[in-house]
């Protein structure tokens, strides 16, 4: 006899469920459901008052129907009625219905909140738990508003039952996640931390989750949790005979709690206090020791629980990255797992070891496992395990083993799953470049890549090989010879043809001495493949031909004939036709000298970060594999800090300054060449030679320009298909300062995404339209923007989450309502998460919502102005700043800025006409602050004096900071 009989008392429900299960078709099911819905409706509408039991039964049936996937549009009121029943089973069904079918009807919400309030106050632990679970499950803003004060109180009250404390802790966690602004920290913080000492391990378990989340946001407030967590962990891990009551799971003491404590400790650096630190080290050693002990049970549950703790301990060891012995021990332990018969363990060991590889202490130890990892590549059946093996090989690669690792990866690439090929290609290309001692090896490797997986070789990869060959004259001859040989294959990948065409066009002369690769042979070889290529490749080959005319005057006639043929000169493709016509013309009119100058060898590319690395980083997104050496260099910088910087929050570095002041078109040096012209275009339109911007136009650049200016300028139009952007331009850190005096503009831009803003403010309210533009040709998945702000501001986003932001050109608009509650300094942060190319992207930018946005301009006469000015004469009410002008001191611009700042510009108030005077009122929900300001320019000294008077010193201060930054 089961402990729970089917249907348990609700016979009607059991019958109904059986009926549904017996339905032979979807139609029959729908028919049965409609019958039931009609029945329930009539019962609910009937004159006879339903008893609690029937209400419970019908509500439960509705819930069942909903869970089958049918819409339910009634019954909410009956469910809410159940909440006030004093029978547990009725209440439970009521709460369940509410939690599953959250309804936004505000009248209902009021009733629900009332019922919850009553239950929270009932002192009946069962009812309190039901209510807390409901808040935790729904977690809506209204609930946060209603219970943000009650929940912490219940959590820390001395007489609260343990099980209620558990629920309250997690309920608070949920509210903190959904509405952090409504759940202020404060008086209960230290009481919460002390829950780590609670007798009841269930309470500790729940509290640890809460503390970890809070500590991630406010590490300083929860610092004391470190010593308590270490003490707690130590009691679990190192004591031999401890009564853990019911918390031992398959002979492992409190595994989940141990994991949570170890995670909490990962919010902090290693403890500074020596005693705590050594106690923690003892714990970690004990955990590592236990892994070596014979298992206390053969059951997989035992080893899983034990290893869950072990892996978390290793994560902590890696996070601290300060104890060489522990790191090496961890590595050895993982090494054993690499050959374990459990696939799970092999997978997890590969994953953890990847992190260890980037620590200087354990990098060498990781390398000793190379052979095992290589064999995993060949033998593992689960593709995800193989992928981890590739990751690990990449992470452990250095100069000593690069040749072998690259060879193995190439080897694996032949049979690799399609899903991971592109990533492997990128990794091979990066490793080959990074650890190439001998560049002929590099060239061979890349050509092999193209041969094996040509389709997965992205533009970045083959652009890069060309950059390198052009920059290193020791490899040019070899490269020419190798591509020439590779092109002999009857079928070769188009990417090979591109590389081959380019390299022969530049360096074909280096192998022309050999009769087997004479100019004509080279030309015929390339041209034999011409007609099978796509337009961009054909365009590239045409350029090779004109370069050949310069390199090999002896085949000029042959090439001109080809250019002159109808299929070129009258090609229906504009690009090809234009090239054919212009190249032909160029070859006819230009003298040999001019030709030689115009078609000279490409100048070296400026050295810069490998564009492929940037691509891999982008592909991997945040949390990507750290570059071994970079990590070693920048030990303390966060590895998983995303690609995008937090939009200039602190004082921006000087380079950002430049950006923020000039027009949005100004770019950082690294991105100039990519945006202005793509690399391949550089070859043919040398006025785009990627000379360092800002460098004086030296003879080289000047010369380059003049020789192209006349005949071939139109070639500069050669666009996209030949070379997309090679570099991923860094996110343009557009400073929020630009928005102080204006409301519209581009807030953020990187290679993927552009964010534009339009906003309007009235009194203490504002509305901001945020436009997201996808700059790529692929969809962003799970695009979810969110806003974090301080209590002083309320923001509310009107946009459903998880929206895919579709392709290039498409824009997504989001509307943000803003309410200024009280004066503030910190701007809200817009957090954007989305998935692009398989990787999670994280972008955080400050929204340019500054206090002055809530200005209402006030017109007044000169007399009024000075009267008020005198009234605000207390020393703390006035803030004055004298500063140097950063821009030209044009009075019209200054006027516009002051008006943009939000105040009324008062004419003829100041006796000195060159001074500016303004007045306005800052509106917040709490209060209004009048503000007077005066700006005195001194054009001779290029200085300004700004004086602000308001009734609140903090407001004066803040406004002065904001405005003085604008001139």
């Amino acid at each position, binding site marked *: 006899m089961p402990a729970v009989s089917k249907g348990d008392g609700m016979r009607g429900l059991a019958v109904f*469920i059986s009926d549904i299960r017996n339905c032979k078709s979807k139609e029959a099911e729908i028919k049965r459901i409609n019958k039931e819905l009609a029945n329930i409706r009539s019962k609910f509408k009937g004159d006879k008052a339903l008893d609690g039991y029937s209400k419970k039964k019908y509500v439960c049936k509705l819930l069942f129907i909903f869970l089958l996937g049918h819409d339910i549009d009634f019954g909410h009121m009956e469910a809410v009625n159940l909440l006030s029943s004093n029978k547990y089973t009725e209440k439970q069904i009521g709460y369940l219905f509410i939690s599953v079918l959250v309804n936004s009807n505000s009248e209902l919400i009021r009733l629900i909140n009332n019922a919850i309030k009553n239950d929270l106050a009932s002192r009946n632990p*069962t009812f309190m738990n039901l209510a807390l679970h409901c808040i935790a499950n729904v977690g809506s803003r209204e609930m946060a508003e209603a219970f943000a004060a009650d929940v912490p109180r219940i959590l820390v009250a001395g007489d609260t039952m343990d099980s209620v404390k*558990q629920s309250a802790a997690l309920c608070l966690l949920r509210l903190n996640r959904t509405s952090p602004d409504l759940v202020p920290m404060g008086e209960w913080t230290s009481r919460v931390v002390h829950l780590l000492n609670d007798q009841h391990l269930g309470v500790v378990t729940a509290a640890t989750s809460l503390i970890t989340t809070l500590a991630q946001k406010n590490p300083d407030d929860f610092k004391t949790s470190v010593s308590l967590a270490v003490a707690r962990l130590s009691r679990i891990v190192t004591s031999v005979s401890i009564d853990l009551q019911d918390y031992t799971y398959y002979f492992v003491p409190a595994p989940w709690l141990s994991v949570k404590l170890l995670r909490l400790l990962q919010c902090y650096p290693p403890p500074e206090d020596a005693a705590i630190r050594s106690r923690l080290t003892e714990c970690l050693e004990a955990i590592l020791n236990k892994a070596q002990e014979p298992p206390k049970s053969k059951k997989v549950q035992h080893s899983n629980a034990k290893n869950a703790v072990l892996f978390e301990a290793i994560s902590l060891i890696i996070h601290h990255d300060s104890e060489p012995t522990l790191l090496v021990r961890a590595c050895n332990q993982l090494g054993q797992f690499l050959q374990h018969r459990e696939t799970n363990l092999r997978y997890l060991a590969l994953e953890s070891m990847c992190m260890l590889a980037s620590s200087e202490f354990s990098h060498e130890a990781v390398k000793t496992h190379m052979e095992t990892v290589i064999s995993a590549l060949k033998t593992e059946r689960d593709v995800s395990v193989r992928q981890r093996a590739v990751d690990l090989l990449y992470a452990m690669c250095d100069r000593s083993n690069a040749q072998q690792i690259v060879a193995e990866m190439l080897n694996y690439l032949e049979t690799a799953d399609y899903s991971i090929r592109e990533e492997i290609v990128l990794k091979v290309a990066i490793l080959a470049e990074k650890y190439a001692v001998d560049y002929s090896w590099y060239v061979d490797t890349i050509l092999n890549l193209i041969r094996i997986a040509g389709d997965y070789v992205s533009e970045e990869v083959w652009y890069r090989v060309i950059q390198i060959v052009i920059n290193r004259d020791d490899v040019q001859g070899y490269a020419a010879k190798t591509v020439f040989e590779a092109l002999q294959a009857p079928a070769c990948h188009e990417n090979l043809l591109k590389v081959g065409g380019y390299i022969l066009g530049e360096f074909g002369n280096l192998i022309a001495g050999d009769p087997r690769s004479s100019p004509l042979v080279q030309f015929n070889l390339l041209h034999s493949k011409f007609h099978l290529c796509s337009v961009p490749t054909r365009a590239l080959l045409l350029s090779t031909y004109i370069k050949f005319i310069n390199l090999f005057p002896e085949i000029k006639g042959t090439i001109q004939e080809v250019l002159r043929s109808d299929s070129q000169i009258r090609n229906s493709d504009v690009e090809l036709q234009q090239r054919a016509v212009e190249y032909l013309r160029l070859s006819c009119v230009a003298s040999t000298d001019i030709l030689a100058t115009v078609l000279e060898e490409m100048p070296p590319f400026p050295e810069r970060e490998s564009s492929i690395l940037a691509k891999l980083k982008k592909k991997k997104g945040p949390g990507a594999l750290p570059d071994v050496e970079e990590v070693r260099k920048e030990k303390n910088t966060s590895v998983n800090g995303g690609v995008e910087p937090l939009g200039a929050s602190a004082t921006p570095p000087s380079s950002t300054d430049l950006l923020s002041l000039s027009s949005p078109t100004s770019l950082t040096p690294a991105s100039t060449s990519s945006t202005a012209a793509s690399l391949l275009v550089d070859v043919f339109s040398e006025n785009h030679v990627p000379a360092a911007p800002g460098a004086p136009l030296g003879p080289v650049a000047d010369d380059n320009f003049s020789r192209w200016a006349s005949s071939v300028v139109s070639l500069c139009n050669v666009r996209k298909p030949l070379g997309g952007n090679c570099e991923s331009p860094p996110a343009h850190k557009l400073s929020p300062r630009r928005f102080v005096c204006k409301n519209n503009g581009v807030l953020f831009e990187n290679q993927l995404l552009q964010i534009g803003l339009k906003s309007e403010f009235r009194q203490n309210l504002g509305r901001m339209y945020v436009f997201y533009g996808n700059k790529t040709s692929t969809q962003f998945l799970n695009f979810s923007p969110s806003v974090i702000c301080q209590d002083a501001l309320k923001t509310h986003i009107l946009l459903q989450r998880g929206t895919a932001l579709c392709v290039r050109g498409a824009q997504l608009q989001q509307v943000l309502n803003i309410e200024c509650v009280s004066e503030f300094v910190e701007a809200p942060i817009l957090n954007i998460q989305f998935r692009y190319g398989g990787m999670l992207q994280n972008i955080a930018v400050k929204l340019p919502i500054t206090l002055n946005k809530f200005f209402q301009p006030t017109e007044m006469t000169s007399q009024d102005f000075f009267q008020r000015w005198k009234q605000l004469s207390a020393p703390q009410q006035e803030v004055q700043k004298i500063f140097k002008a950063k821009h030209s001191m044009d009075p019209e611009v200054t006027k516009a800025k002051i008006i943009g700042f939000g105040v009324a510009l008062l004419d003829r108030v100041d006796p000195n006409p060159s001074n500016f005077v303004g007045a306005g009122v800052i509106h917040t929900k709490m209060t209004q602050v009048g503000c007077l300001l005066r700006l005195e320019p001194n054009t001779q000294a290029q200085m300004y004096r700004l004086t602000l008077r308001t009734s609140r010193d903090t407001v004066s201060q803040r406004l002065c900071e904001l405005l003085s930054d604008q001139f």
Partner: protein
Amino acid sequence: MLFRSSGHECPCSIRFILIQNRAGKTRLAKWYMQFDDDEKQKLIEEVHAVVTVRDAKHTNFVEFRNFKIIYRRYAGLYFCICVDVTDNNLAYLEGIHNFVEVLNEYFHNVCELDLVFNFYKVYTVVDEMFLAGEIRETSQTKVLKQLLMLQSLE
């Protein structure tokens, strides 16, 4: 109601818990993040597609969108937990087993039909063990004691 809907939500550990049978019928869906109904349905289908193609030689973990699914199969039922990529795989794998053992004890040799007919009780079991996307209680004794106490209430 200007400030309804939870505009910004920090990540929690568990995004959702799903119990599905081989045919893809959902026996429990517990969501710890806000998804709209269409999105939920999509997730359910995707999880089913991802998990059912894997065999015993595969790991119990699958990357899934920006998350990962930790799953275990019991007879015809797949128990799946979707967590953050950085979460501890084995802890959640055993979290599933712990949950299953509780169900087994509570329903005396639990079978799929128990979950169908007592769906409203399964939610209670879940809430006892997992709350707000976090592990709430891990002691089987404590959970069962509490469940039996609730069972005795009217």
